[in-house]
């Protein structure tokens, strides 16, 4: 089981491309003349997981759960408050920027907003070729050739090399972002909500493209999204996050048929699915209230303020992330029974 949180990260090469241990990121809130720290946003609050070579690992959760901060910690666009990120046997969590540069060849990121993540004053050929230039991988004609190849591969017309981002639609811009991410032939891509801003028909095109590239290039993918059906479609294993913690981590098929954590059950239950037949509509569990503020997360189990199964112990003792079934770990004192799952969701066929 790859999720054993207790196991110490080792420097030897393993099946895991990425090993995350007790990762924490707090953002201080400062006030007053002396800019004293008055509070902290507990964005990511002690998470551990492994990402295996060649797998697609999903992170799901609602806004404020810390999934995007996690993405930025994995790619070291942010430095963690504490904890470790071991990439390919080396702990990169405290590397200075200079040392991180060569790593950028291996680890790339795709962003949600294809409008904000592309420089409007650069031609797309320049944008896609930028990583090659920055890392001194290819120059002049060679660079142009490689950019054209990549453009062709992601479904952009290489003749549009000199056009600017505003001349492209949202779907095409996301292809530009993908081209920029794969031009260095990375090993790991972290995709943060890559299709959330796209229309349904375009979303499917981009998901297919990501799957094809993953298979062709042997990529390892960390896929972050709030859309549970998209995550299931893409991922082999999935971690569900709530208020900076992982509450459940399971193989994709397992998570959607046998959710153990009440929050996972509630999330799945809340997704409106397409039903042709009137009898298909099931009573949903509707969680009360909103997600509490990550500035002052509830003590013990963070979900206890919204959980319908909450008991006294849930408000006093934090449940550890521990095995609750085959290929499934969850952090809950009172995991869902099979009967409760039946009442919550229409289980998809496995």
């Amino acid at each position, binding site marked *: 089981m790859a999720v054993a949180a207790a196991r110490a990260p080792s420097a030897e090469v393993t099946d895991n491309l990425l090993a995350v241990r007790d990762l924490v990121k707090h953002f201080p809130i400062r006030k007053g003349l002396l800019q004293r720290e008055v509070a902290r946003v507990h964005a990511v609050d002690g998470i551990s997981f492994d990402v295996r070579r060649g797998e697609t690992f999903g992170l799901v959760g609602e806004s404020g759960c810390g999934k995007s901060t996690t993405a930025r910690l994995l790619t070291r666009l942010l430095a963690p408050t504490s904890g470790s990120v071991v990439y390919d046997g080396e702990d990169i969590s405290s590397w200075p920027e200079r040392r991180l540069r060569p790593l950028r060849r291996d680890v790339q990121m795709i962003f949600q907003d294809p409008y904000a993540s592309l420089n409007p004053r650069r031609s797309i050929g320049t944008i896609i070729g930028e990583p090659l230039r920055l890392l001194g991988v290819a120059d002049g004609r060679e660079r142009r050739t490689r950019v054209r190849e990549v453009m062709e591969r992601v479904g952009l017309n290489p003749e549009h090399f000199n056009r600017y981002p505003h001349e492209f639609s949202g779907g095409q811009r996301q292809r530009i972002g993908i081209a920029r991410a794969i031009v260095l032939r990375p090993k790991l891509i972290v995709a943060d909500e890559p299709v959330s801003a796209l229309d349904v028909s375009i979303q499917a095109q981009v998901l297919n493209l990501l799957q094809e590239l993953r298979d062709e290039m042997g990529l390892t993918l960390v896929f972050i999204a709030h859309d549970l*059906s998209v995550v299931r479609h893409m991922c082999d294993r999935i971690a569900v996050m709530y208020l900076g913690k992982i509450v459940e981590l399971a193989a994709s098929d397992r998570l959607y048929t046998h959710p153990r954590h009440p929050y996972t059950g509630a999330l799945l239950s809340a997704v409106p699915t397409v039903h042709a037949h009137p009898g298909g509509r099931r009573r949903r569990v509707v969680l009360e209230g909103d997600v509490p503020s990550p500035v002052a997360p509830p003590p013990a189990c963070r979900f206890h303020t919204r959980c319908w199964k909450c008991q006294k112990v849930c408000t006093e003792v934090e449940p550890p992330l521990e095995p609750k079934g085959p290929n499934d770990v969850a952090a809950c004192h009172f995991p869902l029974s099979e009967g409760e799952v039946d009442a919550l969701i229409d289980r998809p066929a496995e």
Partner: protein
Amino acid sequence: MALLEIDDLHVSFKTVDGIVRAVDGVSLSLDGGRTLGIVGESGSGKSVTAQTIIGLTRFPNATITGQIRFDGRDLVSMPTDDLRGIRGARIAMIFQDPLSSLHPFYRVGSQIVEAIRTHEDVSRGTARRRTIEALRSVGIPSPEERFSSFPHEMSGGMRQRVMIAMALALRPDILIADEPTTALDVTVQAQVLELIQALRDDFGTAVILITHDLGVVSQMADDVAVMYAGRVLEYAPREELFAAPEHPYTWGLLQSIPRLDAPRTERLSPIAGSPPSLIRVPQGCTFHPRCPYAPPPAFEVEPELKESSPGHLVRCHLPVEERKRLWQSLQHEHPALR
């Protein structure tokens, strides 16, 4: 007679790039107490159709033709002053982003009081009582205290509840909800959808629900219109639309979404290409450049929206039998569509 009848509505905007034909011949009707779902991607004309109902598209560069009949009057030709009496009071609208629909400087309670007193001659005290009642009915905890909150002090879900409370304080006949849950998390979306459903059932308010999410439509709507490039391509009762859709675009949408209630598939089957520009809409059937089944006439002549079975309208040149056969073979190929 229907509560609201949209008849051959055209809305176009003159821009520097050319004329944008946002809505191009839309006819729809809505009965009391029913929910009409309008689905489509960006640029399909679903929001412009809804905004035109309450006169929000009356810009200097806009040309609006056709009729929208409500309560024996035509809303398209109605003077803006008269329309103001209907907007809010008889037909209310909520938007995707509640933060931009609420005034940031005023307390939420006073904004609802103002809405009530604009349309009805009641005292400040009565309006305040009704506001607190409305806030309570949409599930806002301790409404007396929340009355004095500013919009920025509330969460997204809470603000959308305030918008719904404001929309319903005047007991409108119709609630138009334009992507009401798109900006919300899935658990909060479930709360808001449940609320809209409950209010429809309790007060008999008719609802026009505009969304890009087929799941939301499937859960909420009685009838569904699928829009593309300013037109309705298919219209049917919900069960029929999802069990036996007849337009290739509807099939494409259904094939594009990963399904939670079906086995995982290797690859999705997306619709090829991208939606057309509304300045240069393709000749013939607007969907033909992306349609794998387009028969020769689709390249030249635009098909009409015709009834294929009672209550089921389709804008497609393919013969009905052919469409039924194609859908069956698609279901055979993709178990998720069954």
